[in-house]
């Protein structure tokens, strides 16, 4: 440094100059991403919020009348026309929440079992590890069709073989459990992959110490593995819950548009928005779904102190 003969007083300003230049360059590098996100996410979200306050039709969005919150709640002559007054919306909410809670719970339990099995040493481990990737790689629409075929009452292995010709998907009350089974099959292996990655980062010497102290495998799991896995597990749980809350493909493919509207919030919103062309009501439902999901994110982040860094 001394041999470079740089005047010491000039160094800080030059460094600040470089830092400012770097900051400017960073903005330029980020610009394409920020513009793209503004176009595909920011602006459409603004339009959705905007139209949720108007009575508008999808075919002619420009002819609109201001309604305020009328799309959400409005009563004329004793008849409620807001979607919050529609029992079908609440059925969709109830079914989506049931779907989310049950399928995420089962995925976590099964995923944990599979991850623990794959994490232990045995012959065929590599094979099982590879097999885990198969359900995950299958497109959701394909897995929905595969299972619709298995549930079919005249051809299906489950519908005809096990249930003896019962049309499981015809009734939305039984269908929701059939749909949960599909989602659990499809995403358990994803959960298992994430948990396995967490397991493999755990320090092995702690288990050696626990073995020395004579702790059983069961105790080791509850006292060591689970607490250490907590951060990884929580992040996986958050992502899976948010995915399950916006579920659409499985319902729409397996039940059709009408019943999908009573089993998935997104299905209900899409029916209002696209099938019925009600841009205002559909946008209002979309805003409600957005708010529900944001509230759940906030609950997760504050209650469990999930950290993403």
């Amino acid at each position: 440094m001394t041999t470079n003969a740089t005047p010491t007083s000039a160094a800080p300003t030059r460094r600040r100059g470089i830092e400012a230049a770097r900051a400017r360059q960073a903005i330029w590098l980020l610009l394409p991403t920020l513009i793209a996100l503004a176009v595909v996410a920011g602006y459409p979200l603004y339009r959705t919020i905007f139209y949720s306050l108007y009575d508008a039709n999808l075919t002619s969005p420009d002819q609109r009348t201001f309604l305020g919150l009328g799309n959400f709640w409005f009563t004329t002559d004793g008849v409620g026309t807001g979607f919050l007054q529609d029992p079908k919306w609440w059925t969709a909410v109830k079914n989506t929440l049931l779907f989310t809670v049950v399928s995420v719970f089962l995925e976590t339990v099964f995923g944990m079992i599979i991850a623990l099995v794959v994490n232990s040493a045995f012959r065929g481990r590599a094979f099982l590890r590879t097999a885990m990737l198969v359900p995950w790689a299958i497109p959701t629409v394909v897995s929905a069709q595969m299972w619709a075929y298995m549930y079919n009452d005249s051809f299906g292995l489950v519908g005809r073989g096990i249930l003896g010709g019962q049309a499981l998907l015809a009734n939305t009350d039984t269908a929701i459990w059939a749909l949960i089974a599909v989602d659990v099959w499809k995403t358990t292996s994803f959960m298992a992959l994430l948990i396995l990655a967490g397991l493999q980062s755990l320090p092995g010497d702690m288990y050696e110490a626990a073995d020395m102290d004579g702790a059983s495998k069961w105790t080791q799991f509850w006292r060591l593995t689970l607490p250490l896995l907590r951060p990884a597990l929580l992040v996986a749980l958050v992502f899976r819950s948010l995915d399950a809350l916006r579920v659409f493909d499985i319902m729409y493919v397996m039940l059709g548009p009408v019943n999908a509207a009573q089993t998935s919030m997104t299905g209900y919103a899409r029916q209002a928005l696209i099938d019925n062309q009600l841009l205002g009501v559909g946008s209002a439902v979309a805003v409600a779904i957005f708010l529900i999901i944001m509230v759940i994110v906030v609950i997760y982040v504050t209650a469990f102190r999930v950290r993403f860094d």
Partner: protein
Amino acid sequence: MNLQKTNPALYYIQRVLFYLLVLVIAVYLLFPFLWAVLTSFRRAGDLFLPPLQFITAPSTLSNYTQVFANASFQRGLIFSLIVAVASVLISLLFGSFAAYALGRFRFRGKAMILYIILAVSVFPQIAVLGGLFTLVQATGLFNNPVALIFSYLIFTIPFTVWVLTSFVRDIPGELEEAALVDGASPLQTLFRVLFPVMMPALVTTGLLAFINAWNEYLFALTFTSSNRTVPVVIANYSGASQYDQPWGPIMAASIVVTVPLIILVLVFQRNIVSGLTAGAVKG
């Protein structure tokens, strides 16, 4: 610890139970897919057969010939490929710029931008569906693959930025400093120095984003009428009447769109697991 010596009987019971569990898991994970593969090779008339006879029934390729002769399926494959490749290439390009800035530069508002990108990735797609639809209509892009290419950026960009940023952070700083000392601009540094190092990460991220774009259903269903992608074609695959679901061809079409993904996933197995965990666990 050494149960094998102290109590061999218990040891073998444990081993047998363990392998039974392994078997159950393997069957659970693979059986539905294998059953679909089997169905795709069976004649329509044999689908009624009880399981054992169904398994031993003669094989046929007729479902596959029928599917490949189907014009909307052919077009679907081409559209899916165009849409998925284009949106992945755009998001890899934009994403690597952003990841370079977020992983290597210091500036105000960086944490804020990271959180915005994370927020977009957990975004419910339905929240933008109406807004995007009016936008697609207004620009005359309805039924145009370009509409899908752009709308898919909503999930491919946040994902690529997030995963690539975590890779860029792990690249040793000396490489970049050497380039800067030689007077290279940030873009030169990115393309000449970082891209070669990032290649495995770009391939992994691109592959995962490709799978997501290939599988997307809601936007494809809503923004196109005749220029459908394969998930929409498969979901709408119909037979002679509404009540006659052609399960054989549906399964054949499903296998055709799934097998390339499974092969890609098996080839890039290691990278995929690391990419997924970088995207979800670290992310």
